[in-house]
C-alpha cells in the first residue's frame, strides 16, 4: 500500500506502542496532524505551550517507564520545547521528540519558521536526526526509540522536513529490531570488577550505599532492596533516587547533599566505603569536592562510563545496568561473612538523634513542612508527587518519605521551574488510577499555568499544592544568608487570585490561611476524584530550608534549623553534636 510520509510516521509510532503524543500543531506538521486525525490508536494531547508538551511527555515517561513522545512544529515550536528537552536530558529520561522542518528545498534559506533544530538541540539531546528521505522515516523512528530507551536513556529529536511527510512510497515492514554498529551500550558488568567490589564491601567497617536516579530509571529498585537488606548497610538516596529504597525503612538515612539529612551527610563524611549506584556525584551532592568523603573508597556503578571518575575518582568502577550489576553483586556476596558494622550503626543512630528535619511551629502561620506532612498523611504516602523548583521542592523531598520508585517526579538536573504541573498531567495520563499531587510555589506555577486548560480538556485530575510564601523563596533564602538580606527581585507583587484563576479554567480552588483548615481541605481535595483542585496555601514567608550545606562546605558543615551556629565538625570530632 502507498502511504505518505506522515502516515508512515504515525504507523511507526503505533508499532512502537505509543499511546500518547503531547504536541501542538503548526504549518510544518500539518500533514502529520492529518494522519493523526485519521486514526484512533494514539491519543494526541493538545497542550497550550510546547514546553508543556515536553514536560508532559517527561512526566508520562517518569511515571510509567515508557518513552514520552512529543510532536511540535518547526521554528518556535521546537525552540519552545527546548527547555523541556534539556530537562529530560539532564535527568536521563527516555523521550522522542518529532519536530516539523521547513520543506527540504527551503532549508538554509531563512524560510518562514525555519530554525536549525538539530543544531539548537545538539547539546541537550542524547542524539538527533534530520530525515532527508521518505525511505529513512521508519528506520529513523526505530533508531530513535532504541537510542532513547537503552543504555543511559535520554531525549532524541527527529526533525522531518514538510515535503517528506507528503511524499508517497510503498509501505515497508517496520523493523523488529535495529543494529547500530556505533552504539552498543554495556549492560552486564565485568566479573573482575564485581569480585573486586565484593572484596572491598566485605572489608568495609563504615559502609554506605549512595543510590541515585539510575536505580529508578534502571528499574533496579527491587534488586537495590535485596542488596541493601542482605548487607544491612545504611543507604542514602539522592534527590533523583528517592523511593528507589523505601524511605520509611530503618536502614534509610534519607536524602543526602545540600539539603540532605544530618545522618546521611555525616555518614557519607565518615564512611570508609561508598557504594554509588546510578548516581553521578553532582555538585549539589558533593559540596566541596576537596572535602568530600575524606576517608572513603568509592565503588561507582553506572551505565554511562563517562560519569565514572568525572567528579570523583572511583577506586572500583563498574560499568553496567544498575539492575544487572546489583544482581551480580548479590550473587557474589551471598553467604559471605561481612564485617560487623554495629558500631557504625550506633554512630549513625546518634547522628539520627540530632533530628535534623525538626522544625518549630509558630501560631498563626502555616509551616510549609507541615503541609507536606499533612499531604503525606492524607494520601497515606501513596500519591505520585511531582514538584516544581524551589524551597517547596526540597520540603516535598524531605517530608514526604517515598517508599516506591517513580513516586517522586521532579526536575533535579536542570531545576526547571514550570516542570511540575505539566509533569503531573503526564503522570496522571500514565497512571490514571493514582492520586497525583503537584507540589509547587506561586513563582513556579506561573511558568506553566496555561496547562490548566489542557488538564480540563483531557480530564487529568491532579491536586495542586501551592506553597504560597509570596516569595521566590529559594532565591530569598540565598539572599538572606549570602547577600545580607538584600532581597533583589525575589518578592513578587501582584499575584493573581489563584482560586478565581483555577475556577476560570474550570477547576476547583481552595484557599487555606489557617493551619486547622489544612487537613480538612486536603481531605476534601483528594475526595474530588475527578477534579483538579488548586490548593492555594499561604505559608510562612520567612521559612528556610534546613539542613543546608553552604556552597563550598563539606558534608560535616551543616546549618541546622533553629541553631544559630553552623554545626561544623572536623573529621576527628564527629561524635559531638
Amino acid at each position: 500500500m502507498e502511504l505518505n510520509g506522515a502516515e508512515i510516521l504515525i504507523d511507526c509510532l503505533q508499532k512502537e506502542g505509543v499511546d500518547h503524543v503531547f504536541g501542538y500543531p503548526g504549518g510544518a506538521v500539518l500533514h502529520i496532524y492529518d494522519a493523526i486525525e485519521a486514526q484512533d490508536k494514539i491519543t494526541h494531547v493538545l497542550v497550550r505551550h510546547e514546553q508543556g508538551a515536553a514536560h508532559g511527555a517527561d512526566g508520562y515517561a517518569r511515571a510509567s517507564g515508557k518513552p514520552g513522545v512529543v510532536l511540535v512544529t518547526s521554528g518556535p515550536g521546537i525552540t519552545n520545547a527546548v527547555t523541556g528537552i534539556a530537562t529530560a536530558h539532564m535527568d536521563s529520561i527516555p523521550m522522542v521528540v518529532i519536530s516539523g522542518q521547513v520543506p527540504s528545498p527551503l532549508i538554509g534559506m531563512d524560510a518562514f519558521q525555519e530554525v536549525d533544530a538539530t543544531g539548537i538541540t545538539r547539546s541537550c539531546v542524547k542524539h538527533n536526526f534530520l530525515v532527508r528521505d521518505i525511505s529513512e522515516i521508519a528506520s529513523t523512528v526505530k533508531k530513535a526509540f532504541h537510542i532513547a530507551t537503552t543504555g543511559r536513556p535520554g531525549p532524541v529529536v527527529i526533525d522531518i522536513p514538510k515535503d517528506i511527510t507528503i511524499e508517497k512510497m510503498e509501505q515497508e515492514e517496520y523493523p523488529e529490531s535495529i543494529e547500530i554498529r556505533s552504539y552498543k551500550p554495556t549492560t552486564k558488568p565485568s566479573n573482575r570488577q564485581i569480585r573486586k567490589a565484593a572484596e572491598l564491601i566485605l572489608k568495609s567497617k563504615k559502609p554506605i550505599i549512595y543510590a541515585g536516579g539510575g536505580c529508578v530509571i534502571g528499574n533496579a529498585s527491587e534488586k537495590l532492596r535485596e542488596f541493601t537488606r542482605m548487607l544491612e548497610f545504611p543507604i542514602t538516596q539522592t534527590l533523583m533516587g528517592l523511593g528507589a529504597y523505601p524511605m520509611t525503612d530503618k536502614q534509610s538515612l534519607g536524602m543526602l547533599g545540600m539539603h540532605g539529612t544530618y545522618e546521611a551527610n555525616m555518614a557519607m563524611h565518615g564512611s570508609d566505603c561508598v557504594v554509588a549506584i546510578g548516581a553521578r556525584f553532582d555538585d549539589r551532592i558533593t559540596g566541596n569536592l576537596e572535602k568530600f568523603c575524606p576517608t572513603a573508597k568509592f565503588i561507582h556503578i553506572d551505565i554511562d562510563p563517562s560519569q565514572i571518575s568525572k567528579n570523583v575518582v572511583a577506586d572500583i568502577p563498574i560499568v553496567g545496568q544498575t539492575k544487572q550489576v546489583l544482581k551480580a553483586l548479590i550473587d557474589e556476596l551471598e553467604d559471605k561473612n561481612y564485617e560487623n558494622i554495629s558500631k557504625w550503626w550506633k554512630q549513625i543512630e546518634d547522628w539520627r538523634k540530632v533530628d535534623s528535619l525538626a522544625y518549630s511551629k509558630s501560631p498563626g502561620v502555616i509551616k510549609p513542612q507541615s503541609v507536606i506532612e499533612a499531604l503525606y498523611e492524607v494520601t497515606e504516602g501513596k500519591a505520585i508527587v511531582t514538584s516544581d523548583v524551589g524551597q517547596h521542592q526540597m520540603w516535598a523531598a524531605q517530608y514526604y518519605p517515598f517508599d516506591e520508585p517513580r513516586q517522586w517526579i521532579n526536575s533535579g538536573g536542570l531545576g526547571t521551574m514550570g516542570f511540575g504541573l505539566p509533569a503531573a498531567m503526564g503522570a496522571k495520563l500514565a497512571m490514571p488510577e493514582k492520586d497525583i499531587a503537584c507540589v509547587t510555589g506561586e513563582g513556579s506555577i506561573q511558568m506553566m499555568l496555561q496547562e490548566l486548560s489542557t488538564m480540563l480538556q483531557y480530564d487529568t485530575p491532579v491536586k495542586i499544592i501551592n506553597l504560597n510564601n509570596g516569595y521566590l523563596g529559594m532565591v530569598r533564602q540565598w539572599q538572606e544568608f549570602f547577600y545580607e538580606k538584600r532581597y533583589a527581585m525575589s518578592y513578587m507583587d501582584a499575584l493573581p487570585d489563584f482560586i478565581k484563576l483555577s475556577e476560570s479554567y474550570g477547576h476547583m480552588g481552595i484557599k487555606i490561611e489557617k493551619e486547622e483548615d489544612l487537613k480538612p481541605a486536603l481531605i476534601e481535595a483528594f475526595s474530588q476524584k475527578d477534579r483538579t483542585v488548586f490548593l492555594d496555601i499561604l505559608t510562612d514567608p520567612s521559612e528556610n530550608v534546613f539542613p543546608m550545606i553552604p556552597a563550598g562546605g563539606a558534608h560535616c558543615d551543616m546549618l541546622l534549623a533553629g541553631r544559630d551556629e553552623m554545626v561544623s565538625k572536623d573529621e576527628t570530632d564527629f561524635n559531638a553534636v
Partner: protein
Amino acid sequence: MRHIISVILEDEAGALSRVAGLFTQRGFNIESLTVAQTNDPTLSRMTIVSSGSERVLEQIVKQLNKLIEVVKVSDLTSQDHVERELMLAKISSTMKEGVDLKELVEIFGCKVVDVKDKIYTIEVSGKTKKINAFLDAIEPSNIIEISRTGVTGISRGKKLI
C-alpha cells in the same frame, strides 16, 4: 600533556559538528582537528590533537565514545605510532642574507611546488616539530602565508585503532 586522539565515526552529515560541539560544550581544548573518509566509504577518521591532564583526557575519550555516531576512539599517544602534518608555506624569494631557500628545502627534505610573482610555495611534511623548525629558520617577514593541515596519525604494524 599533548595527546593525539584517533576517532572512527560514521560518515554522516552532522557528525563533525557533534564532535566540535562536544569540545566547546565541555571546555576541552583542540589544537588541531583533521577529518576525511577512510578506505570504508561509510566511515570517516578524525585525528584530534588536544592537551590536558590524564583526568581530562579520560573524559575526552569517554565523551567521544558516548556520541552515537562514534565507532571507535583511541589515544595514539600511548601507542607506537606515526604522525605527520603537512604545511603549504608561501615564502618570498628575497631571503635573509646567508640563507638559501633551496638549501633549506634540501635540509628539511621538503618540496617547492609552485612559484609565482617571486613567491615560492613550499610543501613541508613531517612531525609538527619539524614544521615549526622550518618556519623558525625563515625570517618572519618573508613568510607570506601558511596553511597547515593539523596532525594526522596512525598506529604502527598490525595493531589497528
